[in-house]
């Protein structure tokens, strides 16, 4: 006997104790696929045979089963299952998750079971128990089909049956996950044959008419068409459409799913009493003169179509009216219903049409869902779903979506073949059609709340702890800019390892050594400006901002800080700054160079005092003033004392050193401050060209970034843009390193903050995973404003040398991976929530406790 197991399905092993269920399960299933009641009994009571624990054990079993079913796993229930009451909740569970159910019955002689039980030390129940179970099983046998095991019921009556049986797994019809495309998915046709032919030609398919009048379609290079159904009704050439589509399916050139109209036609063709409304009458009259044989063929073809398909490893789902994530790849009446009709509230609107539940708006599944059914004026992406029924038969157009390119191709209807009951949704009255965000312009709290695991391309899964998401929710809600603008946040950056060079904490040598150890030979150093990190997004015009980012106001872009706050409180400053950046981009015509109408830059904005005014007033200046006065008074007093002949020299020396350090400290912070009256007093130094339409630039090395951006800066007519100094270093070559160190010394002696050392390539995967994308090496004087004015005193410096970098570095990698992920998702036009979760994650990670001086 061959037992066919659809994947996924819920399999009930049915048989008395000792009938061989567990042995069978061990032989044919993975241990994790099998849920045994005995084992669950053990879990809750430490005793697998404790019958008083049965209720609790089944609660556990059903709980685990539910989790597996939700995850789409094959699940085997290894329990006696001989009573209908025992099977009922399991069948109900399968229904809830749209699972097929399989019954494998072990109808063994009671005597045999009893004998087996007797030799097992842990089964010492009385013989009547097994007898009773056998009786219950036999009573059940007849009803099993009706209970929900109609298609998959296997009964084995002898040990030989069990021994020789073969188990074959077969994927459900809906699963064609190994078909990877490329595909051309075509919307509702409704008998619009001419437009269909034109569209196929447009897509590069070769269409020829055979001598026998048959139309043969040859797909373009390796492609395949997928039809979302509704071939018939309303339109003029239903027969031709059906012929063509059936032919394509037969030759493997097309995959079809059924539409509600197609299903209704089948019923009509099979003589059922169907109301010939909504265009059915047209189909029937066109088919009238066809042969009965052809009509039977049509009925068979349409009837055999599978509700929906999951393709390309689950990345693509095609169904006529769409498919909720939890129904994809499942089989049940409900799934088929959904595929054909979608979901309705049960109410009707003013036009008498059913009000639909907007499943797409809530869609959070990983797969892209392409569907039709409800005509729309323009296809719109909503949370990785797209409706491509553009109402050809109503005078709209016939649309195809190319997969995986995500390109839309359409041909206009040659005429209005059928008057719509209600007008197609007018674009003007709709929300702005945003490429990524469409209707999902509002985020759901469940996209960010609680513990989160975000999977990234660069750095596996990044886990965000709940305590951090709590903090981030407040930050992002109260202070951040509109999430639609937040497509990226820069990662934190670790300093170099601590140097042992006297008088210093950081030195470039350690940075070079780090990368050499990671197997990176060429690095770049870039001057680190002492300003504030800022992300600048600038659009070609306000319409781009509206269309691409979905914002409502009339802005050209935005400037925000590394924690997602708007950089300028004064909107006029921001507007002017963006205007100047745009003017510079116009000048070098990067719009055309990168074929884009928006650009996202990673920059440093100076002076520091613009953003740090509060900090300067509250922290830096007070410390400087109080230290200067206090140390001055102390020194004066000590000097007077010394004049009295008291030996205070050791304290006095110490105080003089401290006073010097404080003077240096004040000088250090003052350098980064200047009066800002207008944009003319600002400097913006861009150092990464992060993204443009459809592209991120993490595959370009830093030399490319620096060159591309200095060209931008040099061609700017305003004084705003500021090119950054940089140099390439071969970390295996001493001369090259010495030269870079000399530049670092020069820069920092002048009061510069220091340098950032990056591997030449933007992203480097080393032997042990992702390598730090950058390390900073700060100057001795600058560090006074981080470690305190007097950190350079020997007694302080020695203690400060012990600092742990590992947490900071791990944080930097996680944030970097999330930032890259966010931008990549954005340029792929993924839903707002997918971009937002990454950015939110970065903000949440920022609330992890790490030494802020690093």
């Amino acid at each position, binding site marked *: 006997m061959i037992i066919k197991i659809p994947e996924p399905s819920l399999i009930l092993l049915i048989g008395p104790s000792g009938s061989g269920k567990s042995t069978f399960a061990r032989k044919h299933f993975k241990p994790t696929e099998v849920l045994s009641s005995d084992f669950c009994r053990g879990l809750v009571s430490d005793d697998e045979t404790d019958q008083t624990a049965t209720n609790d054990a089944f609660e556990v079993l059903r709980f685990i089963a539910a989790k597996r079913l939700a995850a789409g796993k094959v699940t085997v229930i290894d329990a006696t299952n001989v009573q209908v009451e025992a099977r009922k909740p399991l069948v109900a569970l399968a229904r809830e998750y749209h699972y097929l159910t399989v019954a494998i019955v072990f109808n063994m002689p009671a005597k045999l079971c009893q004998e087996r039980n007797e030799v097992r030390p842990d089964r010492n129940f009385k013989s009547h128990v097994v007898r009773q179970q056998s009786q219950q099983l036999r009573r059940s046998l007849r009803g099993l089909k009706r209970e929900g095991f109609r298609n998959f019921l296997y009964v084995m009556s002898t040990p030989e049956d069990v021994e020789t049986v073969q188990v074959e797994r077969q994927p459900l019809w809906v699963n064609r996950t190994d078909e990877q495309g490329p595909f051309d998915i075509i919307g509702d046709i409704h008998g619009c044959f001419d437009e269909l032919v034109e569209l196929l030609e447009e897509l590069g398919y070769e269409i020829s008419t055979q001598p026998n009048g048959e139309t043969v379609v040859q797909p373009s290079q390796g492609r395949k068409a997928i039809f979302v159904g509704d071939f018939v009704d309303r339109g003029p050439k239903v027969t031709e459409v059906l012929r063509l589509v059936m032919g394509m399916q037969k030759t493997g050139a097309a995959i079809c799913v059924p539409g509600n109209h197609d299903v209704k036609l089948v019923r009509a063709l099979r003589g059922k009493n169907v109301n010939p409304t909504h265009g059915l009458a047209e189909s029937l009259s066109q088919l009238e003169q066809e042969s009965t044989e052809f009509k039977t063929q049509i009925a068979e073809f349409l009837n055999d179509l599978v509700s929906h398909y999951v393709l390309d490893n689950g990345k693509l789902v095609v169904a006529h009216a769409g498919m909720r994530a939890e129904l994809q790849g499942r089989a049940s009446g409900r799934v088929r219903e959904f595929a054909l009709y979608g979901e309705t509230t049960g109410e009707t609107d003013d036009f008498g049409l059913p009000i639909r539940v907007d499943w797409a708006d809530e869609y959070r599944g990983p797969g892209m869902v392409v569907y039709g059914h409800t005509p729309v004026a323009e296809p719109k992406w909503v949370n990785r779903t797209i409706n491509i029924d553009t109402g050809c038969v109503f005078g709209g157009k016939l649309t195809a979506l190319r997969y995986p390119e995500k390109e839309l191709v359409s041909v206009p209807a040659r005429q209005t073949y059928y008057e719509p009951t209600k007008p197609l949704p007018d674009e003007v009255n709709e929300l702005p059609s945003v490429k990524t965000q469409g209707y999902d*312009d509002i985020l*759901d709290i469940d996209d960010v709340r609680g513990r989160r695991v975000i999977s990234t391309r660069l750095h596996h899964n990044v886990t965000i702890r709940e305590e951090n998401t709590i903090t981030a929710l407040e930050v992002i809600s109260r202070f951040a800019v509109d999430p639609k603008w937040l497509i990226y946040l820069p990662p934190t950056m670790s300093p170099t390892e601590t140097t042992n060079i006297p008088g210093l904490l950081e030195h470039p040598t350690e940075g070079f050594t780090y990368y050499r150890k990671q197997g990176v030979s060429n690095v770049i150093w870039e001057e680190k400006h002492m300003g504030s990190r800022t992300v600048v997004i600038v659009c070609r015009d306000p319409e781009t901002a509206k269309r691409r980012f979905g914002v409502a106001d009339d802005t050209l872009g935005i400037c925000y800080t590394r924690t997602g706050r708007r950089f300028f409180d004064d909107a006029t400053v921001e507007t002017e700054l963006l205007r100047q950046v745009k003017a510079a981009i116009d000048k070098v015509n990067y719009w055309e160079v990168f074929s884009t109408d928006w650009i996202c830059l990673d920059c440093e904005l100076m002076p520091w005092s613009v953003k740090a005014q509060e900090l300067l007033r509250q922290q830096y200046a007070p410390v400087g003033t109080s*230290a200067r006065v*206090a140390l001055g008074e102390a020194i004066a007093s000590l000097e007077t004392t010394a004049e009295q002949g*008291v030996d205070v020299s050791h*304290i006095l020396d110490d105080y003089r050193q401290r006073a010097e350090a404080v003077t240096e400290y004040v000088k250090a912070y003052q350098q980064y401050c200047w009066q800002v009256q207008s944009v003319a007093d600002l400097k913006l130094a861009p150092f990464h060209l992060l993204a443009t339409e459809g592209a991120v630039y993490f595959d370009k090395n830093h030399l490319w970034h620096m060159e591309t951006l200095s060209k931008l800066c040099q061609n700017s007519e305003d004084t705003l843009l500021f090119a950054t100094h940089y140099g390439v270093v071969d970390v295996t070559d001493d001369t090259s390193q010495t030269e870079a160190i000399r530049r670092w010394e020069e820069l920092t002696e002048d009061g510069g903050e220091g340098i950032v050392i990056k591997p030449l390539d933007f992203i480097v995967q080393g032997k042990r995973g992702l390598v730090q994308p950058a390390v900073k090496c700060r100057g001795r004087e600058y560090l006074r404003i981080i470690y305190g004015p007097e950190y350079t005193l020997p007694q302080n410096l020695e203690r400060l040398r012990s600092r742990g970098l590992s947490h900071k570095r791990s944080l930097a990698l996680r944030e970097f991976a999330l930032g890259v992920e966010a931008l990549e998702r954005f340029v792929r036009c993924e839903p707002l929530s997918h971009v937002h979760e990454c950015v939110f994650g970065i903000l949440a990670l920022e609330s992890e406790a790490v030494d802020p001086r690093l």
Partner: protein
Amino acid sequence: MLLTISTAYSPATDLGYLLHKHPARIQSFGLAFGQAHVFYPEARTEKCTAALLLDVDAVGLIRRPHGQFAENFALAQYVSDRPYVASSFLSVAIARVFSSALSGKCKERPELAETEIPLKVKLSILPCRGGEKLLRRLFEPLGYTVEAERHALDTRFPDWGESRYFTVTLETTCRLSELLTHLYILMPVLDDEKHYWVGDAEIEKLLKHSNDWLADHPEQESIVRRYLKHQRRLTRQALAQLREEDAQEADETVQAQEEEQVEKWIGLNEIRLATVTEVLKQCGARRVLDLGCGEGKLLRKLLAEKQFEKIVGMDVSHHALRIAQERLNYDRLTEKQKQRLCLFQGSLSYRDKRLVGYDGAAVIEVIEHLDLPRLAAFERGLFEFACPRTVVLTTPNIEYNVKFENLQAGRFRHKDHRFEWTRDEFQSWAVGVAKRFDYTVVFHPIGPEAEDVGSPTQMAVFTRGDREARTT
């Protein structure tokens, strides 16, 4: 940080006896947080000056394991003024280094310790929250002549303004121990900060060092409050002890005063909350949301009404929710009461399934804290997705701001307000929202109405349209 004490008492060098420190030597003392040195810049018979120089080891402080110093002390900021200013560190140093002088004991010259002598104190840097005014109000009633020089934040950037630091000279004639207790208590009071945890023991310390002078000090209350780090319970207890009342009585007095105040002048907030509660009651709501519940003032009112079967308080601030939980005694509620009240963190910029299925929602003084571009998300989240039958929403009426004497023209009422609306602005927004989401809206003033400018708070009550009623 340098503190000098001079006297012109003759022989002035007797100051050495009083301080129990030899004038011809420098002495150093190890402290938990650094080092103190005592030396004499001047030691003549006519005039003698003792100096206490305190080194606070800033680096050491930071490297201490967590929790040894009060957490909200500026440790988090590594660039700190603590090593340079007179603060609770200096008070502790005085108690340690001049312990006998502080308690008025002197073995060699016991009578001198009891004698009022001319004294002059100089504090190189004293932070004064409250400025020179407070400095004078604290020291002058104690008989000091005060001289204070204020320092600019940064002379290179004059527009940054003045710092809160003063170089202070105090002159008086009194017992040395008195002077030291004054400094011991008043330096941290002016600084308004403590580097250690303040608990019940701090009351004892305060009373021990101030018993004879604080009882009659005109600034008694603010001294006590600041010294005890603004902790209400401690302040109340300390004041009661100072006034020789018992604390129980004091509690009652305070409560009575509070009640009196309420009766005399019901605050705007009180009117607002009462109005909102009434509206929710009138509309027949049973399950209600308080969105942006803050510390739970409205929740308390709602809980008192048995009509409300389920009450949810949501706020974006986890901290505010914890305070609300405390104020509402959440942990002491019975299981049943707990089922009635539910607090959770949430944000009005996101849609939230947890808010679905309620028939009333209060959004009290909340929207003005949202950036204007984010109102759209709030509107959809509340009116489209949560869609409670009634929404009560209040916000300030900016027109009324001219009536607030303390409010600078052009300023909003709260630093965090992102906008404040005129009545027209508010009403046209609300009418737009109502239209878009199928609600009806009516407006009410809250608080005393003034001619031309209306009431301080404006309220909109939205009622959801009835779909069936509409279609028939």
